[in-house]
């Protein structure tokens, strides 16, 4: 019986262009856009509690802001990547 997935992400908000694609794909809605602007002029996502480390955001981000994903349950795909 699988444990509940718990995860987090490394996120470089300074290169984010505020496209909100990550916001749309997060299955558990734990990403939310800031009110503030980063130094290149865009709003950026803020990680709320409850991330499962599912990688969706990292897969879709066109600006490679998500630099690493952490999770308690390694999966096939994780193995494939490392």
């Amino acid at each position: 019986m699988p444990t509940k997935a718990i995860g987090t992400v490394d996120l470089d908000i300074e290169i984010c262009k505020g496209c909100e694609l990550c916001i749309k794909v997060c299955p558990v809605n734990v990403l939310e856009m800031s009110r503030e602007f980063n130094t290149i002029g865009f709003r950026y996502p803020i990680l709320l509690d409850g991330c499962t480390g599912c990688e969706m955001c990292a897969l879709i981000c066109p600006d490679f802001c998500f630099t690493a994903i952490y999770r308690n349950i390694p999966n096939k795909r994780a193995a494939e990547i490392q």
Partner: protein
Amino acid sequence: MEREIVMGGIGGQGVQLATKILATALNRENRSVMHFAAFGGTMRGGNVECTVVTGTEALAAPPIIPSAWMVISMHPNTVPLVAAKARPGGLFVVNTTLITEPTELEGVNVVEIPASWIAGELDNTQGGAMVLLGAICQATGLVSVEQLVEGLKELTPPYRQKTIPRNTQAFEAGDAFAREHLANFQHQAWALAAA
């Protein structure tokens, strides 16, 4: 008399449209006017620099000019670019939402406007250039904000019609900002002309 305005920003900030609107508004107010847009070949993220030359008489200069009465920077990348064209006694307008380092230029009057922030509050994150123009036109009397709005309607291409209301809002928000923070601005565009 002639007034030159140079505005720099990055692709996507709407600098080209904003300055074209400015030129159109000036024309509507019967100024002589010329507009020139320079961008580095690509639309994506590169620097954009637009020039508006306007005056009470016919214009002689070609549209790429060494210095300007008012230079505007919308983005940190373009600060050095437009700063090089600033003129002693002239204005240097900065979008302080993105340009957070303080700017100082010998003999040049710096005007700070948190344009992107104001636009963001209107949920028009890319509307900073309009906010800034609305503010500085109101402050300097370069052209009326009503004419800016008319220019906006004239120039917005068919595939962007739905942006008209939110850009109108942006001009008006700039106008409001100026009325509050730049009232009795001492650098009036046409002061000499009026005299």
